[in-house]
């Protein structure tokens, strides 16, 4: 019986049951309240509907929380229960093998019985898995029904004429809204905790000093975990990107806010926004298809020039310059739109003053507007840097995989993000230093971008206060 229960799709069933229970509880609460209104002398404090909502809230919420908990933790719990029961023969399995075995079991459990008829041990484990899963599901369901009934009983007993149902319901709503806002904080906490947790496990196997200052990175063979080449690659590519994005973005912003007419603005701004809306994987493909070969061809041509030594440029088919250039273009709109905003926020009176002194437009921009807008511009550049550091797809596709420290922009180079993708794509085992190093790199990435973001946001905030 429990086995068949394990195959029932839970989500829709639970959703339908909750909706039905909610409706029923609402009707019950309303009817009770109307009964009270008819029989008692005193007027109801709240509308009968609010009594209904109150009862429904108390009925649905505990059950829903239980079911949500089951949806999130159910499969993990089933697996650890099963793992505790596995016979001794499985002791020789390492974690990855065990995980793969359990994956197979959980997949087989959703299939027809005939699929796993051939292996008696596997069949027995799968059978047991299904029983555990079904039992947990049934248990949660019964518990949820009990919780719902308890909530119903609690809520209906509180209903009376003087009961402030609306107030209670509104408090519940406010609590729910707060919980939603707290999810954002929980996400950050989740990121920090999970990255920190895995990083600590990594640093228990590889010394922190070797990671931060080692010059050799070769995670695939699990020998060298010196991340300096990755930091260097990230730095070089971000530098190239900023060399493109900052001047172009800044001049574009200045032109748009100080020179362009309304019609030109109406055309150019959406064009720049399109640049920001294109998915990075498309930029990556473009870099791979057009820019990287062009860089390679130019490098080969430069190598052929008489005054340049042969093979001065590596002329690799994936290279730092291509990735950096395309990333720079991708970042242009981030610099330009934020700078545009801060430049527009500079009060017109400052410009008028400069014009009245006889300054030309460019002199006004350079000597009056830009100094006033500087903090905001710096903030936009910092945000752009943070985006460049964290950008993944362009570098994965166009920058290459070879960790090396070289000043040659046409050489293959690798970054933090490329390595994270390379280490975590495919089947990964969560215990090996190879996989864990990805989390250590992720932690560095998170910390780096966080610093840039915090500084930038603080600068923006300070600056806004000045002119408001």
């Amino acid at each position, binding site marked *: 019986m429990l086995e068949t229960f394990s195959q029932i799709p839970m989500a829709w069933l639970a959703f339908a049951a909750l909706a039905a229970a909610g409706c029923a509880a609402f009707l019950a609460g309303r009817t009770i309240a109307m009964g009270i209104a008819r029989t008692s002398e005193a007027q109801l404090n709240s509308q009968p509907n609010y009594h209904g909502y109150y009862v429904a809230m108390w009925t649905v919420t505990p059950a829903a929380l239980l079911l949500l908990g089951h949806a999130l933790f159910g*499969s*993990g719990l089933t697996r650890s229960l099963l793992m505790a029961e596995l016979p001794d023969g499985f002791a020789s399995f390492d974690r990855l093998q065990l995980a793969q075995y359990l994956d197979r079991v959980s997949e087989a459990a959703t299939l027809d019985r005939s699929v796993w008829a051939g292996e008696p041990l596997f069949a027995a484990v799968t059978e047991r898995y299904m029983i555990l899963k079904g039992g947990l599901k049934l248990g949660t369901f019964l518990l949820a029904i009990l919780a719902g009934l308890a909530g119903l009983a609690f809520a209906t007993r509180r209903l009376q004429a003087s009961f402030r149902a609306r107030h209670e319901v509104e408090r519940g709503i*406010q609590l729910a*809204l*707060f919980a*939603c*806002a707290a*999810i954002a*904080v929980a*996400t*950050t906490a*989740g990121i920090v905790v*999970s990255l920190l*947790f895995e990083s600590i496990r990594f640093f228990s196997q590889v010394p922190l000093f070797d990671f931060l200052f080692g010059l050799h990175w070769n995670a695939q063979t699990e020998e060298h975990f010196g991340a300096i080449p990755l930091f260097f690659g990230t730095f070089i590519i971000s530098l190239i990107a900023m060399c493109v994005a900052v001047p*172009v*973005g800044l*001049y*574009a912003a200045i*032109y748009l806010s100080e020179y362009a007419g309304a019609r030109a603005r109406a055309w*150019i701004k959406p064009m*720049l926004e*399109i*640049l920001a*809306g*294109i*998915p990075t*994987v*498309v930029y*990556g*493909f*473009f870099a791979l*298809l057009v820019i990287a070969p062009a860089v390679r061809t130019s490098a080969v041509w430069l190598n052929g020039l008489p005054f340049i030594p042969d093979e001065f440029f590596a002329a690799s088919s994936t290279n730092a310059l291509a990735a950096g250039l395309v990333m720079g273009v991708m970042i242009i*709109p981030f610099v330009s739109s934020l700078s545009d905003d801060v430049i527009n926020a500079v009060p017109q009176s400052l410009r008028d003053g400069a014009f009245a002194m006889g*300054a*030309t*437009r*460019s*002199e006004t*921009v350079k*000597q009056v507007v830009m100094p006033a807008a500087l903090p905001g511009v710096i903030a936009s550049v910092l945000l752009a840097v943070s*985006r460049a550091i*964290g*950008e*993944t*797809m362009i570098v*994965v*596709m166009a920058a290459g995989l070879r960790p090396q420290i070289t000043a040659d922009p046409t050489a293959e180079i690798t970054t933090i993000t490329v390595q*994270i*993708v390379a280490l*975590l794509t*495919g089947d*990964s085992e*969560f215990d090996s230093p190879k996989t864990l190093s*990805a*989390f250590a790199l*992720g932690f560095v990435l*998170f910390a780096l*971008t*966080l610093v840039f*973001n915090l500084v930038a946001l603080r600068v923006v905030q300070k600056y806004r206060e000045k002119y408001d």
Partner: protein
Amino acid sequence: MTKLISSPGPSRFDDPEALSRLKKRHAAERRFRLYGQLAISFAILFLGLLIVSIGSQAVSAFSHHQVTFHLPLNEETVAPNGPGDPEAVEENISGFYQLVREDLARTFPEAGETPARTREVNALVTRLAVIPMARETSEHLDWLGETRRYRTALSDDLDLYLKGAVADEIEISLAEILRAEQIRAEDSDAPPRIRLTSADEFASLRDALARASALTADRGEAGGFSVLVQNGANLVRLLPPYDSQPLLFEPMTGTPANLAGGKPEARIILLPESARNVTDRQIAWTLALQEQGRIRSSLNWALLTNSDSTYPEIAGVLAAIVGSLFTMFVTAAIAIPIGICAALYLEEYAPKNRVTDLIEVNINNLAAVPSIVFGLLGAAVFLNFLALPRSAPLVGGLVLGLLTLPTVIIAARAALRTVPPSIRAAALGLGASKTQTVFHHVLPLAAPGILTGAIIGMARALGETAPLLLIGMVAFVAEVPGGPTDEATALPVLIYKWSTGAERAWEPNTAAAILVLLTFMVVMNAVAVFLRRRFERRW
């Protein structure tokens, strides 16, 4: 300017020094303006280059060449379990491929001479390309015993060749060939040679050969080209040395004697045979098929209706689209309600205190966290800790939902802020509670703005790739997923995967998939713009 102020004494506007200074200042002004224009043109040109280069690649993927076959559907090959089992017919790929091979062998008897050559001719059609035939036949089992006409995709390399993407070519029409005679060498094992007698002694061909040598010599690939002479479905290849007297040819396909008369043509393929994936003989066969009217270019619907495959000519984006839809569904279910609720709390309810400040700073920061970090979160928490299924749209949607959440919150807060306080005051004044005010008045008025922001956030999530790579959605998925917990891949991930494909034909396919993705994003953004235009209200 500072100089102007500090320089003492009377300054007349027409004194030469002042005029030259003015000129300089005006030049600086024009330069500055020009820099701005250059910056904007650079960005827009780049955008144009990107769209044009991807668009032109994609165009070639939206059409493909199909070969027509007339296959005798004998029961023992096609329906191994008899006519009562359509499923066996549908899965009988090897049977149908055998029929295709037999047809090719009938058309090109010379291909049977050596096993290598048989393999060469069989490579004209990929084995898996017969799947649609098998499916079609399984639905019409009454066709058994008849000879039916089928069309199937030509191999990707030859398709690219016909689209002119493999090598540059010089095509010339020749003067009439008067006679074609076979020369037998003394050594009977040597391949036969053909001597052609042309009306103009191949003057035009020799011209073209000289041009071809010049062209390839520049590239440093001397002698690196092939020459095919064609008349109807009969083709021969020029044997080196290309300047011999007389020119000698070897037969490729058809009957060499039939080269005489008619309108012969020659094509010089400016890339050595060793440097391309298609042999001269395969090209000759393809051209012969084309001459027989058996190769036609048609719209490549397979790209939209097929799922992923290891062969570019039959790979399509359907499974990825469905995977992306499931992912987006979960993302929307997470990000939009939670985002709106969080925005309502922060804008309407939150007291000014440290907790609120913390949440605000947090959301602004979260919006700028690199997307790959969310992928790490998904791998560590959803996959490792919660043991949710790998490669599933459910997990992808959860991760992208958390990623989109701050964007939705920020957009929703901006929309809520545009609702004037007078509305709230009026509702409160009429006795509504805070919550009634918010849900009955503020939220409906802000809804269009919130929805616009949400759609734009979803469009961005649709293009996200990196986090999905980390939670295993990069797996090869050849079947359309049936639900959010099935193995699936997403459109941007498919683009990434295809772009890493070794064969050249993946390039146009990738570009076409990008076009599909961009179409979805443009539609979503257009809906957002429409909503904004239609419902935007100025207070």
